[in-house]
């Protein structure tokens, strides 16, 4: 990975588009470089029996590197009016994170306590925390969605969902 770009101080309004543009281009550039590296390791040339495994991805990686380099250059040295926008302001960013962070916790919870329990807690928690609903109502909606999912997947379609490392619903026999 390259060093983080000399980010211009984000203005009070939010994160500047240019910063994000350059960071994203560099991240993708790094991915492209990884592809090139691994393709060369596998052999990106013409082997005894035709093109080697890395032949095609090698050029893919190369194009990724070239195009992201251009994008980064355009963002850094391009016309001012195109790059001086604001990517996201703080208030909307907070709203985005208020969805994203619970979602991360939710997926972590699935890993531990399984789909059904985690989903019920997640939906109810989301409603109480962000929607300011009463505990009772939130719990009812969460349980209802989970029960519906259980009936649909476990019983109706017979597609078992992940039960988690500690399966709290083991008593149901599924």
């Amino acid at each position: 990975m390259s060093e983080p770009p000399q980010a211009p101080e984000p203005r009070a309004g939010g994160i500047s588009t240019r910063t994000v543009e350059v960071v994203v281009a560099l991240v993708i550039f790094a991915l492209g470089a990884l592809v090139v590296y691994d393709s060369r390791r596998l052999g990106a040339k013409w082997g005894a029996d035709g093109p080697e495994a890395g032949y095609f991805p090698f050029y893919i990686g190369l194009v990724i590197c070239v195009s992201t380099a251009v994008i980064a250059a355009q963002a850094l040295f391009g016309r001012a009016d195109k790059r001086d926008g604001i990517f996201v302001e703080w208030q909307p960013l907070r709203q985005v994170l208020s969805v994203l962070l619970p979602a991360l916790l939710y997926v972590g919870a699935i890993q531990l306590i399984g789909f059904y329990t985690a989903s019920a807690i997640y939906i109810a928690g989301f409603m109480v925390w962000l929607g300011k609903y009463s505990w009772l109502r939130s719990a009812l909606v969460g349980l209802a969605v989970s029960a519906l999912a259980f009936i649909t997947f476990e019983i109706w379609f017979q597609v078992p969902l992940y039960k988690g490392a500690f399966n709290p619903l083991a008593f149901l026999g599924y």
Partner: protein
Amino acid sequence: MGDIAALFHGFAVALTPFNLLLMFIGVSLGVIIGVLPGLGGANGIAILLPLTFTMPPTSAIIMLSCIYWGALFGGAITSILFNIPGEPWSVATTFDGYPMAQQGRAGEALTAAFTSSFIGALVAVIMITFLAPLVARFALQFGPPEFFAVYFLTFCSFIGMGKEPPFKIMAAMMIGFALAAVGIDTVTGQLRLIFGWHELMRGFDFLIAVIGLFGIGEILLSMEEGLSFSGRSAKIDPKIVLQTWAKLPRYWATSLRSCLIGCWMGITPGGATPASFMSYGVAKRVSPNGTKFGTGELEGVVAPETAAHAAGTSALLPMLSLGIPGSPTAAVLLGGLLIWGLQPGPLLFVEQKDFVWGLIASMYLGNIAGLIIVLTCVPLFAAILRVPFSIIAPIIVVICAIGAFTVHNAMLDIWFMLLFGIAGYVLKKLAYPLAPLVLALVLGDRAEDAFRQAMLMAQGDLRIFFSNWLVGSIMALALVLLFWPLFSRWRARHRKPATTAAMG
């Protein structure tokens, strides 16, 4: 004439009670998906795909394609009633649809939107009926170089016709190809790009990418805008339906033009969204009422809706006949075909007659079913939108997580889904297009195989791509499209030497 007989055989296949039931379920689910933010045609179908693995392929594709029709219809409801486009292709519908609703003409606007959608789809299906078998028959002569040339053309046309900066289109597309290369190399059996992480051996499934990019990404985007629905209720009076239908023939020229634009944009992978904008723009320029567009003009609803549906439907033509999807949703359907063990492409018309013609027949029936359902159930669907976002959002996240898990029963996929969601949010905000990424992820392996086989045939000589008139002309067209942005930039510079590089 053999095709007509085959089509009637197809109707016989599609018209079983079970399939009809699936059709109605599919359309209803589709409309709900189209109405909800964060769920759209592509990821909705991706989530439901695993549930159809146990069905016979014909029934499964009938249901899934009906979800697609439903989603196309559903986008219009939110655009007109709430000024919130449920789908990107219905953005242009808000321009005149929402003003009409504000003037109390919601019923009229909805009727016009649904009817135009239906007409657009119908024209596209008729075109598919007659053109797809011809294209397939023609494509039977294709060898690996020709197939690679067609893939190449598909991807170059994204660059040539996309609105986004060309280098971003290229980068997005190549990310798709790189992700597709992860895992076992189908030719040599070597492990590629997994860096010792053996869970990556399966590779990245594009269904996960679709659910993350379009589902989670979309939720994050709508959250940023702080969505709060405050809509009006709508009922469609049968009298208004008839009155509107009486008015529609006046706009036959707009309809026809929009159908043509839609079909063209659907076959070439332009997709429904640019088709709807283009059609709206052209109608505005050509129509005598052009100046009144944007204030609640019926014609301004007819044009984008017809084109969006025509494009959405005709995107299935290259998917069926060449195995190359014209849109992300068509790509998901193609993924379904592969999972059911059907090889999309020209041979499908020879080997799986029942399937192909059953699907085409179901396009006719599904659109009729769709029209009936949306005209009668609008108040019901509009009511869904009055459920507050703080209830809908977590439920959609749960649905996406379930969808991602059921693809391979792998917990890791859910984490990837979140990762794709964050990537989708950032990339979309920076104007990296997501459709080419998804298409490259779906087609990556097949394009690479075609390329390698062609290279083997020619012993590494790139001139094979210009070895006969067919492959040569496809390649030439592709190269023209690839360098089109450069050309138009050069032209813009020459026309107005004063302004620097005025290109979009």
